[in-house]
């Protein structure tokens, strides 16, 4: 019998035993607190406990499970909310009230609910890992596909008829090559720290369309890519994550609230259940899995929540879905690593973070990708991680290390947020490395003009940044007229295009066709006005025509479903410019 020897916060040690293996899941104490083995020496086995250890005594038993920390994968995950180790919060609330008790044990998926299962195999079929043997509608929007767990193969010897089954009911029996018979249910288990295997990784080829202009146009993210959103507090990280979760064209969203505010998770829950997914016409929650390990919940479970989230995402990717993960925030996860590392008295590297921080970050971001799954379907996992840099200083270790593993960087800017320019993504310090890889897609779908316009828009913004250096020293009045026009146009782009109102029904999501149309109108104005300026007309007169005012309001006045209206702007610009003399 193994017993607790020492206790220090979430770190518990067991003395003189050889019964445990690394990363094994264990139950600690009479209350059966969930824990994981994180270190073994000849004298001590070190365990991190995923719950509070208040009241734990030395001498209480520690139970081995023989398996690494795993999650249950099966129907019932969608539209649900879990803590960092996949315990359903709604069920916990039913059982133990408003507060989360220690040692609560609840099945992650509802084991009483029945699903309308269709078997897709017959007796005698040979199945390999990843092959689908049954399907069922998990929510009205998503069909769940039950797959043979990686590592398994064999012949189907018995199939149940189609009908209603619970997740733990046997729907088929498989005979493995060594003659063993295994019952197949609707669910399986998988260790959270091991990536689920795939057949091969495909090159990046399609964008994840978000309907946010500054992202889709200037800094696009690809399906299967990884992006970071760093920003100090109050710059709108969470708001941007919420917008992406609501509008991006992934099939399934996994939203990880990692060490963030409780009220924020409540807001996501409420908002998503009221929002309607434009594609399926159903509630947004039907395609969403929430993982909430708020800042006051146990720190070790916060560390696990990131892995739990990505494992669930990979499971749905294996079915052939496109999954997007929002992790808010990865800095809190890194801090959990630091906190536990400190308790283990490990040698700290930069700012107290453990030396293995970069490799852990890499392991996480590398689980993103556009894959051919074991069963031949294609699916993707896209990771969008928020970073909360200490003191808003982007040179701190988490931001710097994250930058090495992501290819899209949306830098949020305090000055923009202070002026209430949202999304406060700074166009000078952000970047996306996917533009070249996505070029064929954009060219084919929206015409070559899209990327040309994009380039011109970003050139104008660049030029403005340089001109502003001069304006800051000597004022705008002394600039030559053509440069004044550039500054005016850049203002149009900033206010009329980049700034986007998440609370406005028309502006919260904008299709790429309209994004292109808006750019074209702005650039048309720029070209025509430039001709006028070359003829010697001062910019101040052009300002008075009111053209700019109406261009700024295109975002509200041209509905997403009536883009024909954009064409009215060209004659309007011509007419009004013609009047200027």
């Amino acid at each position, binding site marked *: 019998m193994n017993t607790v020897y020492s206790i220090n916060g979430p770190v518990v040690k067991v003395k003189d035993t050889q019964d445990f293996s690394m990363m094994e899941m264990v139950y600690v104490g009479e209350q059966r607190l969930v824990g994981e083995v994180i270190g073994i020496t000849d004298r001590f086995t070190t365990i991190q406990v995923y719950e509070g250890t208040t009241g734990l005594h*030395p001498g209480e038993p520690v139970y081995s499970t023989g398996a690494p920390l795993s999650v249950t994968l099966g129907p019932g995950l969608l539209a649900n909310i879990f803590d960092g180790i996949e315990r359903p919060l709604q069920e916990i609330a039913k059982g133990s009230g408003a507060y989360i008790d220690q040692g609560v044990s609840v099945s992650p998926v509802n084991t009483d609910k029945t699903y309308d299962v269709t078997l897709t195999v017959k007796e005698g079929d040979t199945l390999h890992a990843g092959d689908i043997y049954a399907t069922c509608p998990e929510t009205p929007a998503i069909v769940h596909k039950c797959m043979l767990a990686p590592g398994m193969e064999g012949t189907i010897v018995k199939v149940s008829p189609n009908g209603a089954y619970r997740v733990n009911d046997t729907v088929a029996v498989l005979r493995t090559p060594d003659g063993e018979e295994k019952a197949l249910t609707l669910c399986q288990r998988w260790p959270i720290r091991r990536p689920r295997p795939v057949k091969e990784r495909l090159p990046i080829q399609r964008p994840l369309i978000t309907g946010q202009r500054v992202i889709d146009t200037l800094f696009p993210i690809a399906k299967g890519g990884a992006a970071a959103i760093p920003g100090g507090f109050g710059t709108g990280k969470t708001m941007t994550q919420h917008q992406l979760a609501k509008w991006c064209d992934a099939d399934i969203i996994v939203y990880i609230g990692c060490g963030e505010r409780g009220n924020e998770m409540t807001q996501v829950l409420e908002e998503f259940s009221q929002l309607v997914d434009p594609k399926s016409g159903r509630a947004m929650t039907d395609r969403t899995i929430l993982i909430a390990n708020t800042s006051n919940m146990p720190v070790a479970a916060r560390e696990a929540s990131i892995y739990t989230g990505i494992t669930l995402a990979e499971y749905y990717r294996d079915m052939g879905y496109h999954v997007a993960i929002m992790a808010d925030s990865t800095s809190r996860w890194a801090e959990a690593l630091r906190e536990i590392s400190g308790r283990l008295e490990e040698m700290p590297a930069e700012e107290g973070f453990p030396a293995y921080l970069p490799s852990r970050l890499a392991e996480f971001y590398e689980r993103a990708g556009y894959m051919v799954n074991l069963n031949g379907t294609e699916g993707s996992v896209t990771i969008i991680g928020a970073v909360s840099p200490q003191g808003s200083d982007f040179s701190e270790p988490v931001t710097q290390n994250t930058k090495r593993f992501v290819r899209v960087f949306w830098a949020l800017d305090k000055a923009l947020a202070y002026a209430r320019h949202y999304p406060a993504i700074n166009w000078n310090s952000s970047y996306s490395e996917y533009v070249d890889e996505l070029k064929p897609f954009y060219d084919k779908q929206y015409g070559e003009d899209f990327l040309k316009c994009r380039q011109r828009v970003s050139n104008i913004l660049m030029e403005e940044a340089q001109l502003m250096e001069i304006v800051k020293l000597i004022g705008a009045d002394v600039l030559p007229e053509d440069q004044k026009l550039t500054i005016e146009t850049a203002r149009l782009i900033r206010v009329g295009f980049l700034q986007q109102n998440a609370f406005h029904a028309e502006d919260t999501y904008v299709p790429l066709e309209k994004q292109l149309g808006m750019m074209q109108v702005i650039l048309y104005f720029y070209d025509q006005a430039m001709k006028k300026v070359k003829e010697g007309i001062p910019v101040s007169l052009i300002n008075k025509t009111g053209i700019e005012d109406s261009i700024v309001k295109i975002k509200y006045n041209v509905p997403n479903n009536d883009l024909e209206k954009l064409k009215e702007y060209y004659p309007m610009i011509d007419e009004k410019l013609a009047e200027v003399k």
Partner: protein
Amino acid sequence: MSVQVLGLKEINGPLVVLDNVEGVGYDEMAEVILTDGSRRLGRVVQIEGKRVVLQVFQGTSGVALNNVRTSFQGHPMEMPLSPEVMGRIFNGAGTPVDGLGPIFATKREDINGKPLNPVSREYPVNYIRTGISSIDALATLIRGQKLPIFSGSGMSHNKLAAQIVKQARISDDKGEKFAVVFAAMGVTNDVADYFKRQFEESGVLERVVMFLNLSSDPIIERILTPRCALTVAEYLAFEQNMHILVILTDMTSYAEALREFSSSKGEIPGRKGYPGYLYSDLASIYERAGIVKGINGSVTQIPILTMPNDDITHPVPDLTGYITEGQIVLDRNLDQTGVYPPVSVLPSLSRLMKDGIGEGYTRADHPGVSNQLFSAYAKVQDARSLASVIGEEELSEADKRYLEFGRMFEKHFLNQGFSENRTIEQTLDLGWDLLSLLPREELDRLDDKLIDQYYDPERAARFRQ
């Protein structure tokens, strides 16, 4: 049955080590009894086999290895609770110090609390009118929110907190009960007295529960102070159905106490010597604000912290800002020019206001007005920095209008004095008066309809006299 141990093995600052102890749990409370009969409270912070590390709250002066007896109590630190706590004054460790005797507890609760399940929370949407324009219009306080005041030494944060307590309409008119829980951590005697006087003057003293840990009191108790206070707040809110406003001052002293304690335990320090778990620790305090579904009570927190050297990137304000739902930042320049309250508008923010203002809550034009005021005031800063280089005379006409707007905004909108209590209508109308100083085409954050309804250059005439 409780475990008793004679003598100690080691003493190190506020920590004592006991050997050969059995049957003691993590986080358990203990009483250290000296041979002269005096008693001190302690808490188990580490267990290694039979070796137990105990943190002694009143410090270890006078404690020797052989003059003490330790009695373990078999449960974690608890706070006695009953409706009688109203109007009482406690020390930092939750012992009454007002000479009115002990609390007759109807129940006792672990002061560490338990994490509130996010699915059991109700998303806060009801605004609290504080009567202060800069807060009501620009960083609206919502019931169930945690909204800290970031200040610096010597600024008027205490005055502001007192004014909020005096003016805030915490509960609606429906006869709902409200109370204030006030926790002082490491503040001077004068500050504690100031608050006591202010509570008395505004007639709420019998609805205030005070926890006083003065700057000369033991730092170990300071770590317990906010936890005791919040346990009382949660009890009153969620079991007695009251609306509770919690004022925690000063969180920087709290964090420093935590640092001192951490270093005496020999832990590996993080940034500026603060322990690596400062974020989680602060979160375990701030996250205890909120509303529970189905219960007609709420905990609203206004923590106050002084930013060392006015540095907002210092770990304490920085980590606080990441946990709380916005912040009200005070500005030293405004303070010195005599503006009260000296709220620095641009970095101040309330994350919950977007769902608690506008039609049906405050007034339909509120979101637009606050947005426009922010954006206009941001432009004032640009114009000012340009003026400081090229001189005000050389500015463009538009920039000059912004400078004028900025001056009037600070003079009339921000500066309102300690005794003025403005309704939300007054505040928003004042906002329109000021916006009317600007040319109409500069109002790019407002709907044309609203501009037609409210914008009128005549409104601004009084500022120009």
